[in-house]
């Protein structure tokens, strides 16, 4: 009953195409895998005879219609004979659905296109900067409003986020800082031993960790860990229209979602920085003891006598600023998510990259600032 046959995929008859006395005779199975090569043949014919065609699928019918068009283009009037009713139905369907225009191929990019691309990127980067600054302003204004009316502060949310971004990050942050201390001691020892100045390894470790590395690397880890989580959480709420639902209920998403995260991270990043400082010094001391024979007692007394406490403050003063950068960027990118999952993934990675970049840029500015002040 089905003229297409129940087609066992293996035993197909190869399609044949012959020009016999002005008639184009088609024979065999015209299926998607085998018709392509036939279209290379050319010849003189006005009638296409399908009586020998055992099976015909869309691609086969497409081939027939293509041959028909070719006859038309050559000025002939094509005629199809010998098709079963199902086959002619399919051919008719194809005739209606043949693409009218050539399928466009992606045009090559010219130099002007690339220049235009550069211009567009510059403008959009500028707009994005303005948007982030605007967002920061909104957050600050909301916080100011909350200070006036402290009853609206969402303590539960703040504590929840403090646990998420702070307490839960302690293991990874302290392990990272410990290893950094170990590496610094190991590398410093190798260099300082050449001058017989092994004991200066304490100053090297203490200053680099307290002043720069402890807080910077903590901020980088937190950006990867919590900045992305902020974007993903707020972004998926945006996707599921939860943010819009909040607005219809008279809740301000900045107050409910953004401010608790910003406050929590601003409180917790300095704490994490202190933990990282301790872990880093511990790792450095341990390695100095093993590698250089600087005993913990010597390490401690040298640390206390030679390393000024200002290094610790220089490091820690940066923490709240880094926290603000990470939280604002993470929440801002989350708010930019559109309705689809691709934008969520794209913006999550953008958020991490941007936050890390801005943290390092801010760190460089701080270095210059402190150098000018002479601290």
């Amino acid at each position, binding site marked *: 009953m089905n003229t297409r046959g129940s087609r066992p995929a*293996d035993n197909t008859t190869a399609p044949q195409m012959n020009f016999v006395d002005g008639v184009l005779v088609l024979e065999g199975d015209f299926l*998607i895998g085998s018709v392509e090569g036939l279209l290379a043949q050319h010849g003189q014919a006005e009638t296409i005879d399908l009586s020998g065609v055992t099976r015909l*699928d*869309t691609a086969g019918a*497409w081939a027939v219609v293509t041959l028909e068009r070719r006859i038309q283009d050559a000025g002939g009037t094509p005629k199809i004979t010998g098709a079963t009713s199902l086959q002619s*139905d399919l051919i008719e369907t194809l005739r209606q*659905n043949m693409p009218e225009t050539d*399928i466009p191929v992606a045009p090559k990019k010219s130099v002007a296109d690339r220049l235009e691309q550069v211009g567009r990127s510059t403008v959009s980067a500028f707009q994005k900067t303005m948007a982030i600054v605007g967002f920061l302003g909104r957050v600050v204004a909301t916080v100011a409003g909350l200070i006036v009316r402290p009853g609206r502060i969402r303590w539960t949310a703040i504590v929840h986020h403090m646990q998420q971004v702070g307490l839960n990050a302690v293991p990874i942050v302290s392990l990272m800082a410990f290893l950094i201390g170990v590496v610094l001691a190991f590398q410093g020892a190798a260099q300082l031993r050449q001058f017989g100045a092994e004991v200066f390894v304490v100053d090297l470790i203490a200053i680099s960790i307290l002043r720069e590395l402890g807080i910077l690397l903590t901020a980088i880890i937190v950006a990867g860990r919590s900045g992305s989580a902020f974007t993903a959480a707020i972004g998926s709420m945006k996707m599921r229209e939860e943010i819009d639902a909040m607005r219809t209920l008279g809740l301000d998403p900045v107050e409910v979602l953004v401010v608790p995260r910003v406050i929590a991270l601003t409180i917790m990043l300095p704490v994490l920085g202190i933990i990282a400082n301790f872990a880093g010094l511990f790792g450095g001391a341990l390695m100095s003891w093993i590698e250089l024979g600087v005993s913990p007692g010597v390490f401690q007394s040298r640390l206390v006598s030679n390393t000024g406490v200002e290094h610790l403050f220089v490091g820690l003063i940066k923490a709240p600023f880094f926290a603000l950068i990470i939280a604002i960027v993470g929440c801002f990118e989350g708010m930019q998510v559109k309705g689809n999952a*691709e934008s969520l993934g794209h913006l999550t990675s953008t958020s991490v990259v941007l936050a890390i970049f801005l943290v390092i840029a801010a760190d460089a500015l701080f270095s210059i600032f402190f150098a000018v002040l002479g601290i």
Partner: protein
Amino acid sequence: MDEAPIISVRGLVTRFGKHTVHDGLDLDVRQGEIIGIVGGSGTGKSVLLRAVVGLLKPVEGQITVFGENVRDTSAEDYRRLRRRWGVMFQDGALFSSLNVQQNVEAPMREQLALSPETRAALAAIKVRMVGLPEDALQKMPSELSGGMRKRAGFARAIALDPEIVFLDEPTAGLDPIGAAAFDTLIAQLRRALGLTVFLVTHDLDSLHAICDRIAVLAEGRVLATGTMSEMQNVDHPWVQAYFKGPRARAALAQKETI
């Protein structure tokens, strides 16, 4: 009808943890028909579809498609088998990194050695056949509406001219006009391409309009199969509620006035 069924499911048991979805389910699908699978939420309609196409391993039971056992075939046989059916998932399941044209070309690119021109021409035809405008070819899935994504998913499912298409809730989430148009499209392509259609649906209008037979899933098995009018006489509370509820009456009345 003495022809061997094109899909035959015998004694299917599927389980997720301790939750048994199908418990000894039997189902035959005949060649060239549109069979509608209906059932309440959680009765395992989509799970049945996934089991038949081999995406999910049943605990027990036999599933044969084209007379070949889906479960115990070699990888090579399964690959060959897979070429003979197409699946459209609920939201089209288009590959989000490819545009519509590349999506429709994907099965051709993977399975056949065709020139890019042929592939593009065939993809354009398939896209037109499912009723999408030609400029949709270059669009990314995220730029399409839900109905267009479903149509594009359908175009991908029929890209290799399969003998069976599995459609998972093709009209869910479409407006009534779009849903009716999709029904017409399914019926049209069934005629033009000689398809057998395995249709998982909730849509009473689809069942009325295009299904030759309906299989009702409940209590882990197929409760009844038959035409729409036969369903009216099945003595089971769920079937009665489903086919004689206000929505069913509305769908029936609408059909009669047409």
